[in-house]
Protein backbone atom coordinates (compact mmCIF):
# COMPACT_ATOMS: atom_id res chain seq x y z
CA UNK A 1 0.00 0.00 0.00
CA UNK A 2 1.31 3.42 -0.82
CA UNK A 3 1.74 5.94 2.02
CA UNK A 4 2.07 9.69 2.31
CA UNK A 5 5.29 10.83 4.01
CA UNK A 6 6.67 14.24 5.08
CA UNK A 7 10.47 14.66 5.02
CA UNK A 8 12.75 17.45 6.32
CA UNK A 9 16.20 18.27 4.86
CA UNK A 10 19.06 17.49 5.17
CA UNK A 11 17.99 13.89 4.58
CA UNK A 12 19.55 10.93 6.34
CA UNK A 13 19.72 7.34 5.15
CA UNK A 14 17.06 6.44 7.76
CA UNK A 15 14.63 8.89 6.13
CA UNK A 16 15.17 7.37 2.72
CA UNK A 17 15.43 3.65 3.44
CA UNK A 18 11.79 3.29 4.50
CA UNK A 19 10.48 4.81 1.26
CA UNK A 20 9.00 2.46 -1.31
CA UNK A 21 7.89 2.85 -4.89
CA UNK A 22 4.42 4.54 -5.21
CA UNK A 23 4.72 6.35 -1.83
CA UNK A 24 3.79 10.03 -2.03
CA UNK A 25 6.34 12.41 -0.42
CA UNK A 26 6.22 16.06 0.74
CA UNK A 27 9.48 17.93 1.53
CA UNK A 28 10.31 20.73 3.96
CA UNK A 29 13.67 22.52 3.96
CA UNK A 30 16.27 23.31 1.31
CA UNK A 31 16.37 22.12 -2.30
CA UNK A 32 19.05 22.70 -4.98
CA UNK A 33 18.17 22.97 -8.68
CA UNK A 34 20.64 21.57 -11.18
CA UNK A 35 20.27 20.56 -14.80
CA UNK A 36 22.57 19.77 -17.73
CA UNK A 37 25.20 22.52 -17.52
CA UNK A 38 25.40 22.61 -13.71
CA UNK A 39 26.02 18.84 -13.69
CA UNK A 40 28.72 19.18 -16.33
CA UNK A 41 30.41 21.95 -14.32
CA UNK A 42 30.17 20.02 -11.05
CA UNK A 43 31.99 17.13 -12.74
CA UNK A 44 34.63 19.52 -14.15
CA UNK A 45 35.22 21.21 -10.78
CA UNK A 46 35.64 17.88 -9.02
CA UNK A 47 38.07 16.70 -11.69
CA UNK A 48 40.11 19.90 -11.33
CA UNK A 49 39.90 19.82 -7.51
CA UNK A 50 38.03 23.12 -7.33
CA UNK A 51 35.58 23.66 -4.44
CA UNK A 52 31.86 23.62 -5.19
CA UNK A 53 29.71 26.57 -4.09
CA UNK A 54 27.29 24.23 -2.28
CA UNK A 55 27.55 21.36 0.21
CA UNK A 56 25.36 18.56 -1.13
CA UNK A 57 25.54 16.09 1.80
CA UNK A 58 21.99 14.95 2.53
CA UNK A 59 20.75 17.24 -0.21
CA UNK A 60 17.72 17.14 -2.45
CA UNK A 61 18.62 17.86 -6.09
CA UNK A 62 15.83 19.12 -8.29
CA UNK A 63 16.11 18.71 -12.07
CA UNK A 64 14.51 22.03 -12.85
CA UNK A 65 15.19 25.31 -14.59
CA UNK A 66 13.13 28.06 -12.99
CA UNK A 67 11.94 31.35 -14.39
CA UNK A 68 12.81 34.01 -11.81
CA UNK A 69 12.70 37.78 -11.53
CA UNK A 70 15.00 40.17 -9.68
CA UNK A 71 12.97 42.56 -7.55
CA UNK A 72 15.04 45.09 -5.52
CA UNK A 73 17.60 42.89 -3.73
CA UNK A 74 15.62 39.70 -3.79
CA UNK A 75 14.97 37.02 -6.36
CA UNK A 76 11.36 36.17 -6.94
CA UNK A 77 10.20 32.79 -8.22
CA UNK A 78 7.82 33.00 -11.17
CA UNK A 79 7.52 29.34 -12.19
CA UNK A 80 9.51 26.17 -11.61
CA UNK A 81 8.89 22.59 -12.64
CA UNK A 82 10.75 19.36 -13.33
CA UNK A 83 12.74 18.74 -16.50
CA UNK A 84 13.55 15.36 -18.10
CA UNK A 85 15.88 13.58 -15.68
CA UNK A 86 17.37 11.07 -18.09
CA UNK A 87 19.75 13.70 -19.47
CA UNK A 88 21.48 13.81 -16.07
CA UNK A 89 21.91 10.02 -15.91
CA UNK A 90 25.74 10.01 -16.35
CA UNK A 91 26.21 11.99 -13.11
CA UNK A 92 24.29 9.88 -10.57
CA UNK A 93 27.25 7.93 -9.22
CA UNK A 94 29.13 11.20 -8.70
CA UNK A 95 26.24 12.96 -6.97
CA UNK A 96 25.01 10.15 -4.76
CA UNK A 97 28.39 8.50 -4.11
CA UNK A 98 30.94 11.28 -3.96
CA UNK A 99 28.79 14.24 -2.90
CA UNK A 100 26.25 12.55 -0.61
CA UNK A 101 23.03 13.61 -2.36
CA UNK A 102 20.05 11.69 -0.91
CA UNK A 103 17.16 12.50 -3.20
CA UNK A 104 16.83 13.41 -6.86
CA UNK A 105 13.56 14.98 -8.00
CA UNK A 106 12.64 15.22 -11.66
CA UNK A 107 10.48 13.77 -14.34
CA UNK A 108 10.48 10.78 -16.64
CA UNK A 109 12.68 8.53 -14.49
CA UNK A 110 16.34 7.56 -14.71
CA UNK A 111 18.47 4.60 -15.83
CA UNK A 112 20.35 1.57 -14.57
CA UNK A 113 23.31 3.58 -13.27
CA UNK A 114 21.05 5.64 -11.02
CA UNK A 115 19.20 2.54 -9.82
CA UNK A 116 22.53 1.01 -8.75
CA UNK A 117 23.70 4.21 -7.06
CA UNK A 118 20.42 4.60 -5.15
CA UNK A 119 20.85 1.09 -3.78
CA UNK A 120 24.56 1.45 -2.99
CA UNK A 121 24.38 4.84 -1.25
CA UNK A 122 20.73 4.73 -0.05
CA UNK A 123 18.98 7.34 -2.10
CA UNK A 124 15.62 7.89 -3.73
CA UNK A 125 14.34 9.22 -7.05
CA UNK A 126 11.13 11.21 -6.82
CA UNK A 127 8.78 12.27 -9.55
CA UNK A 128 7.31 15.78 -9.47
CA UNK A 129 4.07 16.41 -11.34
CA UNK A 130 5.35 17.47 -14.77
CA UNK A 131 4.45 20.82 -16.27
CA UNK A 132 3.09 22.20 -13.00
CA UNK A 133 5.25 25.30 -12.88
CA UNK A 134 2.86 27.60 -11.05
CA UNK A 135 1.80 25.07 -8.44
CA UNK A 136 5.44 24.15 -7.75
CA UNK A 137 6.42 27.80 -7.38
CA UNK A 138 3.85 28.18 -4.60
CA UNK A 139 5.85 25.77 -2.42
CA UNK A 140 9.00 27.92 -2.74
CA UNK A 141 9.03 30.20 0.30
CA UNK A 142 12.29 31.97 -0.51
CA UNK A 143 15.22 31.91 -2.91
CA UNK A 144 18.21 31.61 -0.56
CA UNK A 145 20.98 31.92 -3.18
CA UNK A 146 21.91 31.45 -6.80
CA UNK A 147 25.24 30.08 -8.08
CA UNK A 148 26.73 29.94 -11.58
CA UNK A 149 24.23 32.36 -13.07
CA UNK A 150 26.68 32.73 -15.99
CA UNK A 151 25.29 29.39 -17.25
CA UNK A 152 21.97 31.11 -17.88
CA UNK A 153 18.85 31.37 -15.76
CA UNK A 154 17.57 27.82 -16.25
CA UNK A 155 21.02 26.20 -15.93
CA UNK A 156 22.20 27.93 -12.74
CA UNK A 157 22.05 26.32 -9.28
CA UNK A 158 19.16 27.88 -7.37
CA UNK A 159 19.01 27.27 -3.61
CA UNK A 160 15.37 27.19 -2.57
CA UNK A 161 13.59 27.06 0.76
CA UNK A 162 10.47 24.91 0.31
CA UNK A 163 7.51 24.17 2.51
CA UNK A 164 5.37 21.05 2.18
CA UNK A 165 6.53 20.57 -1.40
CA UNK A 166 4.58 17.83 -3.12
CA UNK A 167 3.00 15.55 -4.21
CA UNK A 168 6.24 13.77 -5.20
CA UNK A 169 5.86 10.11 -6.13
CA UNK A 170 8.65 7.62 -5.26
CA UNK A 171 9.60 6.20 -8.65
CA UNK A 172 12.92 4.51 -7.72
CA UNK A 173 13.72 3.40 -4.18
CA UNK A 174 16.85 2.19 -2.37
CA UNK A 175 15.75 -1.47 -2.55
CA UNK A 176 15.85 -1.74 -6.34
CA UNK A 177 12.16 -0.87 -6.69
CA UNK A 178 11.44 0.86 -9.97
CA UNK A 179 7.96 2.14 -10.72
CA UNK A 180 8.76 2.76 -14.40
CA UNK A 181 10.07 -0.77 -14.86
CA UNK A 182 6.86 -2.20 -13.34
CA UNK A 183 4.71 0.04 -15.52
CA UNK A 184 6.74 -0.78 -18.62
CA UNK A 185 6.58 -4.54 -18.09
CA UNK A 186 2.80 -4.29 -17.75
CA UNK A 187 2.62 -2.16 -20.90
CA UNK A 188 4.68 -4.62 -22.96
CA UNK A 189 2.45 -7.53 -21.86
CA UNK A 190 -0.63 -5.54 -22.79
CA UNK A 191 0.84 -4.56 -26.18
CA UNK A 192 1.36 -8.20 -27.11
CA UNK A 193 -2.28 -8.94 -26.24
CA UNK A 194 -3.44 -6.04 -28.40
CA UNK A 195 -1.23 -7.03 -31.34
CA UNK A 196 -2.51 -10.60 -31.13
CA UNK A 197 -6.13 -9.38 -31.19
CA UNK A 198 -5.41 -7.21 -34.25
CA UNK A 199 -3.87 -10.15 -36.11
CA UNK A 200 -6.86 -12.36 -35.23
CA UNK A 201 -9.22 -9.70 -36.59
CA UNK A 202 -7.50 -9.74 -39.97
Amino acid at each position, binding site marked *: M*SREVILTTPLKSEDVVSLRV*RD*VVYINGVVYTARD*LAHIRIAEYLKEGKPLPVDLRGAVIYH*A*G*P*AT*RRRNDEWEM*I*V*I*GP*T*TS*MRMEPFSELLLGRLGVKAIVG*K*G*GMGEGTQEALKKYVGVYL*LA*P*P*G*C*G*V*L*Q*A*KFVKRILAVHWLDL*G*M*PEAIWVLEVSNWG*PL*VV*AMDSHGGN*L*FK*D*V*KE*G*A*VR*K*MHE*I*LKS*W*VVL*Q
Partner: protein
Amino acid sequence: MRVIDEKSLYEIALELVKRSSTRIAPDAMFLLRQAYQREKSLAAKRMLEAMIRNAELAAETGKPVCQSPGYPVVYVKMSPAIIVNANIQKVFQKAIVDATKMGYLRPSMVHPITRRNPGDNSGVGVPDVEIEISPEQDYTELTISFKGCGAELANVVKVLTPAQVGKDGIGIKRLVLESVIAAGGVPCPPVGIGIGIGGQIHQATKLSRKAIGAREWTDTNPDPELAKLENELLSAVNSLGIGPAGVGGNTTALAVKIEMAYTHTAICPIAINFHCWVARRSGVRIYSDGSAAFKEDMYRPPI
Protein backbone atom coordinates in the same frame (compact mmCIF):
# COMPACT_ATOMS: atom_id res chain seq x y z
CA MET B 1 -10.43 43.47 -49.05
CA ARG B 2 -8.93 43.99 -45.61
CA VAL B 3 -5.31 44.79 -44.89
CA ILE B 4 -3.56 43.83 -41.65
CA ASP B 5 -0.56 46.08 -41.09
CA GLU B 6 2.52 45.34 -39.01
CA LYS B 7 1.24 47.16 -35.91
CA SER B 8 -2.06 45.29 -35.68
CA LEU B 9 -0.37 41.97 -36.48
CA TYR B 10 2.08 42.62 -33.62
CA GLU B 11 -0.80 43.28 -31.20
CA ILE B 12 -2.49 40.05 -32.28
CA ALA B 13 0.78 38.12 -32.01
CA LEU B 14 1.52 39.41 -28.50
CA GLU B 15 -1.97 38.53 -27.34
CA LEU B 16 -1.66 35.00 -28.79
CA VAL B 17 1.71 34.51 -27.07
CA LYS B 18 0.36 35.73 -23.70
CA ARG B 19 -2.79 33.61 -23.95
CA SER B 20 -1.00 30.44 -25.00
CA SER B 21 1.65 30.69 -22.28
CA THR B 22 -0.73 31.33 -19.39
CA ARG B 23 -3.52 28.87 -20.10
CA ILE B 24 -3.91 25.53 -21.74
CA ALA B 25 -6.39 25.01 -24.55
CA PRO B 26 -9.96 24.39 -23.30
CA ASP B 27 -10.22 21.11 -25.24
CA ALA B 28 -7.21 19.68 -23.40
CA MET B 29 -8.59 20.98 -20.10
CA PHE B 30 -11.90 19.25 -20.81
CA LEU B 31 -10.09 15.96 -21.47
CA LEU B 32 -7.96 16.29 -18.32
CA ARG B 33 -11.03 16.74 -16.12
CA GLN B 34 -12.67 13.76 -17.81
CA ALA B 35 -9.54 11.69 -17.16
CA TYR B 36 -9.51 12.69 -13.49
CA GLN B 37 -13.03 11.29 -13.08
CA ARG B 38 -11.99 8.02 -14.75
CA GLU B 39 -8.67 7.47 -12.99
CA LYS B 40 -8.55 4.92 -10.14
CA SER B 41 -5.03 4.74 -8.62
CA LEU B 42 -3.97 7.18 -5.87
CA ALA B 43 -0.66 8.33 -7.40
CA ALA B 44 -2.31 8.85 -10.81
CA LYS B 45 -5.17 10.82 -9.31
CA ARG B 46 -2.74 12.99 -7.30
CA MET B 47 -0.75 13.77 -10.46
CA LEU B 48 -3.85 14.72 -12.49
CA GLU B 49 -5.12 16.79 -9.57
CA ALA B 50 -1.84 18.74 -9.50
CA MET B 51 -1.99 19.30 -13.29
CA ILE B 52 -5.57 20.60 -13.23
CA ARG B 53 -4.90 22.81 -10.19
CA ASN B 54 -1.75 24.14 -11.82
CA ALA B 55 -3.56 25.07 -15.03
CA GLU B 56 -6.29 26.82 -13.02
CA LEU B 57 -3.70 28.74 -10.97
CA ALA B 58 -1.85 29.83 -14.11
CA ALA B 59 -5.04 31.16 -15.69
CA GLU B 60 -6.01 32.97 -12.45
CA THR B 61 -2.60 34.58 -11.87
CA GLY B 62 -1.53 35.17 -15.49
CA LYS B 63 1.66 33.16 -14.90
CA PRO B 64 3.13 30.68 -17.40
CA VAL B 65 1.53 27.22 -17.08
CA CYS B 66 4.94 25.52 -17.27
CA GLN B 67 8.40 26.93 -16.60
CA SER B 68 9.61 25.57 -19.93
CA PRO B 69 7.99 27.54 -22.73
CA GLY B 70 8.39 24.90 -25.41
CA TYR B 71 9.15 25.66 -29.03
CA PRO B 72 6.82 27.98 -30.96
CA VAL B 73 5.24 27.23 -34.32
CA VAL B 74 2.79 29.62 -35.97
CA TYR B 75 0.20 28.10 -38.31
CA VAL B 76 -1.35 30.49 -40.79
CA LYS B 77 -4.35 29.66 -42.96
CA MET B 78 -4.58 32.58 -45.26
CA SER B 79 -7.69 33.86 -46.97
CA PRO B 80 -7.16 35.70 -50.26
CA ALA B 81 -9.69 38.27 -48.95
CA ILE B 82 -7.21 39.48 -46.33
CA ILE B 83 -3.78 40.89 -47.03
CA VAL B 84 -1.14 40.57 -44.33
CA ASN B 85 1.20 43.43 -45.07
CA ALA B 86 4.02 42.40 -42.74
CA ASN B 87 6.76 39.79 -42.28
CA ILE B 88 4.83 37.29 -40.14
CA GLN B 89 7.96 35.54 -38.88
CA LYS B 90 9.65 38.78 -37.78
CA VAL B 91 6.52 40.16 -36.12
CA PHE B 92 5.94 36.98 -34.10
CA GLN B 93 9.62 36.88 -33.12
CA LYS B 94 9.32 40.42 -31.77
CA ALA B 95 6.18 39.46 -29.84
CA ILE B 96 7.99 36.44 -28.37
CA VAL B 97 11.03 38.53 -27.39
CA ASP B 98 8.80 41.17 -25.75
CA ALA B 99 6.72 38.52 -23.94
CA THR B 100 10.01 37.05 -22.65
CA LYS B 101 11.00 40.46 -21.25
CA MET B 102 7.59 40.66 -19.56
CA GLY B 103 8.19 37.31 -17.83
CA TYR B 104 5.74 35.18 -19.84
CA LEU B 105 8.46 33.00 -21.35
CA ARG B 106 11.71 31.74 -19.85
CA PRO B 107 14.68 32.48 -22.15
CA SER B 108 15.14 29.01 -23.62
CA MET B 109 16.13 29.31 -27.28
CA VAL B 110 19.80 28.54 -27.88
CA HIS B 111 22.23 28.00 -30.74
CA PRO B 112 21.93 24.29 -31.59
CA ILE B 113 25.69 23.59 -31.50
CA THR B 114 27.34 26.16 -29.23
CA ARG B 115 24.27 26.21 -26.93
CA ARG B 116 24.68 29.99 -26.58
CA ASN B 117 21.52 31.53 -25.13
CA PRO B 118 20.82 35.07 -26.37
CA GLY B 119 18.58 35.50 -23.31
CA ASP B 120 15.40 36.68 -25.01
CA ASN B 121 14.16 33.72 -27.10
CA SER B 122 15.32 35.36 -30.32
CA GLY B 123 17.30 33.34 -32.83
CA VAL B 124 17.39 32.06 -36.40
CA GLY B 125 14.16 30.27 -37.31
CA VAL B 126 12.26 31.13 -34.10
CA PRO B 127 9.35 30.82 -34.41
CA ASP B 128 8.75 28.35 -37.20
CA VAL B 129 5.97 29.64 -39.46
CA GLU B 130 3.85 27.38 -41.66
CA ILE B 131 1.69 29.19 -44.20
CA GLU B 132 -1.13 27.58 -46.14
CA ILE B 133 -3.50 29.29 -48.58
CA SER B 134 -7.21 28.57 -48.05
CA PRO B 135 -9.05 30.13 -51.03
CA GLU B 136 -12.51 29.14 -49.73
CA GLN B 137 -12.13 30.94 -46.36
CA ASP B 138 -13.39 34.45 -45.68
CA TYR B 139 -11.09 34.64 -42.67
CA THR B 140 -7.38 34.31 -42.02
CA GLU B 141 -6.54 32.08 -39.11
CA LEU B 142 -3.37 32.41 -37.02
CA THR B 143 -2.61 29.73 -34.44
CA ILE B 144 0.44 29.64 -32.19
CA SER B 145 1.50 26.39 -30.58
CA PHE B 146 4.25 26.11 -27.96
CA LYS B 147 5.13 22.43 -27.72
CA GLY B 148 7.28 21.31 -24.79
CA CYS B 149 10.73 19.97 -25.63
CA GLY B 150 11.10 17.19 -23.06
CA ALA B 151 8.44 15.46 -25.14
CA GLU B 152 10.54 15.92 -28.28
CA LEU B 153 13.08 13.47 -26.88
CA ALA B 154 10.55 10.65 -27.28
CA ASN B 155 9.68 11.39 -30.92
CA VAL B 156 10.17 8.73 -33.58
CA VAL B 157 10.65 9.15 -37.32
CA LYS B 158 10.99 6.20 -39.64
CA VAL B 159 10.63 5.29 -43.29
CA LEU B 160 8.81 1.96 -43.52
CA THR B 161 8.75 -0.35 -46.52
CA PRO B 162 5.35 -1.52 -47.83
CA ALA B 163 6.04 -4.92 -46.21
CA GLN B 164 6.62 -3.25 -42.86
CA VAL B 165 3.34 -1.33 -43.14
CA GLY B 166 1.58 -4.69 -43.37
CA LYS B 167 -2.09 -5.49 -43.71
CA ASP B 168 -4.42 -2.69 -42.51
CA GLY B 169 -1.40 -0.69 -41.40
CA ILE B 170 -0.65 -3.05 -38.53
CA GLY B 171 3.04 -2.15 -38.77
CA ILE B 172 2.19 1.52 -38.22
CA LYS B 173 -0.01 0.71 -35.23
CA ARG B 174 2.68 -1.50 -33.71
CA LEU B 175 5.28 1.27 -34.12
CA VAL B 176 2.98 3.71 -32.30
CA LEU B 177 2.50 1.36 -29.33
CA GLU B 178 6.22 0.57 -29.18
CA SER B 179 7.05 4.29 -29.26
CA VAL B 180 4.57 5.06 -26.45
CA ILE B 181 6.10 2.31 -24.31
CA ALA B 182 9.66 3.45 -25.05
CA ALA B 183 8.63 7.02 -24.16
CA GLY B 184 7.16 6.03 -20.78
CA GLY B 185 6.91 9.06 -18.50
CA VAL B 186 9.42 11.15 -20.49
CA PRO B 187 6.97 13.18 -22.65
CA CYS B 188 4.86 14.23 -19.61
CA PRO B 189 1.78 12.05 -20.04
CA PRO B 190 -1.11 12.26 -20.44
CA VAL B 191 0.21 13.15 -23.88
CA GLY B 192 -1.21 14.22 -27.18
CA ILE B 193 0.17 12.11 -30.01
CA GLY B 194 0.52 13.65 -33.46
CA ILE B 195 1.14 11.19 -36.27
CA GLY B 196 2.18 12.24 -39.74
CA ILE B 197 2.08 9.55 -42.41
CA GLY B 198 3.18 9.78 -46.02
CA GLY B 199 4.91 12.19 -48.36
CA GLN B 200 8.64 12.11 -47.83
CA ILE B 201 10.06 12.23 -44.31
CA HIS B 202 9.97 16.06 -44.10
CA GLN B 203 6.24 16.06 -44.87
CA ALA B 204 5.52 13.34 -42.34
CA THR B 205 7.29 15.28 -39.56
CA LYS B 206 5.56 18.55 -40.45
CA LEU B 207 2.18 16.82 -40.56
CA SER B 208 2.81 15.17 -37.19
CA ARG B 209 3.60 18.52 -35.54
CA LYS B 210 0.59 20.18 -37.13
CA ALA B 211 -1.77 17.33 -36.21
CA ILE B 212 -1.13 17.74 -32.49
CA GLY B 213 -0.14 21.43 -32.44
CA ALA B 214 -2.85 23.07 -34.54
CA ARG B 215 -5.91 20.85 -34.14
CA GLU B 216 -8.30 20.86 -31.17
CA TRP B 217 -7.79 17.66 -29.20
CA THR B 218 -11.52 16.89 -29.08
CA ASP B 219 -12.17 17.35 -32.83
CA THR B 220 -13.09 14.57 -35.25
CA ASN B 221 -10.92 13.90 -38.27
CA PRO B 222 -12.94 14.70 -41.44
CA ASP B 223 -11.36 11.63 -43.08
CA PRO B 224 -13.45 8.70 -41.70
CA GLU B 225 -10.62 6.16 -42.09
CA LEU B 226 -8.20 8.36 -40.16
CA ALA B 227 -10.89 9.13 -37.56
CA LYS B 228 -11.33 5.39 -36.99
CA LEU B 229 -7.58 4.87 -36.71
CA GLU B 230 -7.27 7.77 -34.25
CA ASN B 231 -9.92 6.22 -31.98
CA GLU B 232 -8.48 2.75 -32.26
CA LEU B 233 -4.98 3.96 -31.37
CA LEU B 234 -6.21 6.18 -28.52
CA SER B 235 -7.96 3.29 -26.83
CA ALA B 236 -5.01 0.92 -27.45
CA VAL B 237 -2.53 3.45 -26.03
CA ASN B 238 -4.67 4.02 -22.94
CA SER B 239 -4.96 0.31 -22.25
CA LEU B 240 -1.15 0.13 -21.87
CA GLY B 241 -1.45 1.48 -18.32
CA ILE B 242 1.47 3.97 -18.36
CA GLY B 243 -0.67 6.68 -16.77
CA PRO B 244 -0.24 10.35 -15.85
CA ALA B 245 3.46 11.24 -15.40
CA GLY B 246 4.16 7.54 -16.06
CA VAL B 247 3.11 6.44 -12.55
CA GLY B 248 0.59 3.89 -13.89
CA GLY B 249 -3.07 4.45 -14.69
CA ASN B 250 -5.76 4.55 -17.36
CA THR B 251 -4.78 7.89 -18.89
CA THR B 252 -1.64 7.77 -21.02
CA ALA B 253 -2.92 9.88 -23.92
CA LEU B 254 -5.61 12.54 -24.14
CA ALA B 255 -5.67 12.53 -27.92
CA VAL B 256 -4.24 10.84 -31.02
CA LYS B 257 -4.35 13.00 -34.15
CA ILE B 258 -3.31 11.80 -37.59
CA GLU B 259 -2.61 13.72 -40.79
CA MET B 260 -1.59 12.08 -44.05
CA ALA B 261 -0.29 12.79 -47.52
CA TYR B 262 0.04 10.36 -50.41
CA THR B 263 3.51 8.90 -50.70
CA HIS B 264 5.63 7.03 -53.23
CA THR B 265 4.81 3.38 -53.91
CA ALA B 266 8.18 2.28 -52.47
CA ILE B 267 7.91 3.91 -49.03
CA CYS B 268 5.81 4.91 -46.04
CA PRO B 269 7.41 7.71 -43.99
CA ILE B 270 5.96 8.07 -40.51
CA ALA B 271 6.56 10.58 -37.72
CA ILE B 272 5.24 10.08 -34.20
CA ASN B 273 5.24 13.39 -32.35
CA PHE B 274 4.58 13.56 -28.61
CA HIS B 275 2.97 16.60 -27.00
CA CYS B 276 3.03 16.94 -23.20
CA TRP B 277 -0.30 17.51 -21.39
CA VAL B 278 0.44 21.26 -21.39
CA ALA B 279 -1.44 22.14 -24.59
CA ARG B 280 -0.35 25.74 -25.09
CA ARG B 281 -2.25 26.78 -28.16
CA SER B 282 -4.11 29.93 -29.01
CA GLY B 283 -5.70 30.93 -32.29
CA VAL B 284 -7.50 33.86 -33.83
CA ARG B 285 -9.73 34.26 -36.86
CA ILE B 286 -9.68 37.60 -38.63
CA TYR B 287 -12.68 38.00 -40.92
CA SER B 288 -12.87 40.01 -44.12
CA ASP B 289 -15.46 42.35 -42.52
CA GLY B 290 -12.87 43.44 -39.95
CA SER B 291 -14.12 41.43 -36.98
CA ALA B 292 -11.92 38.95 -35.09
CA ALA B 293 -12.51 36.10 -32.65
CA PHE B 294 -10.25 33.87 -30.59
CA LYS B 295 -10.72 30.19 -31.37
CA GLU B 296 -10.53 29.09 -27.74
CA ASP B 297 -13.31 31.54 -26.81
CA MET B 298 -15.53 29.88 -29.41
CA TYR B 299 -14.74 26.36 -28.13
CA ARG B 300 -17.61 24.03 -27.26
CA PRO B 301 -16.87 20.63 -25.70
CA PRO B 302 -18.17 17.56 -27.56
CA ILE B 303 -21.60 16.30 -26.51
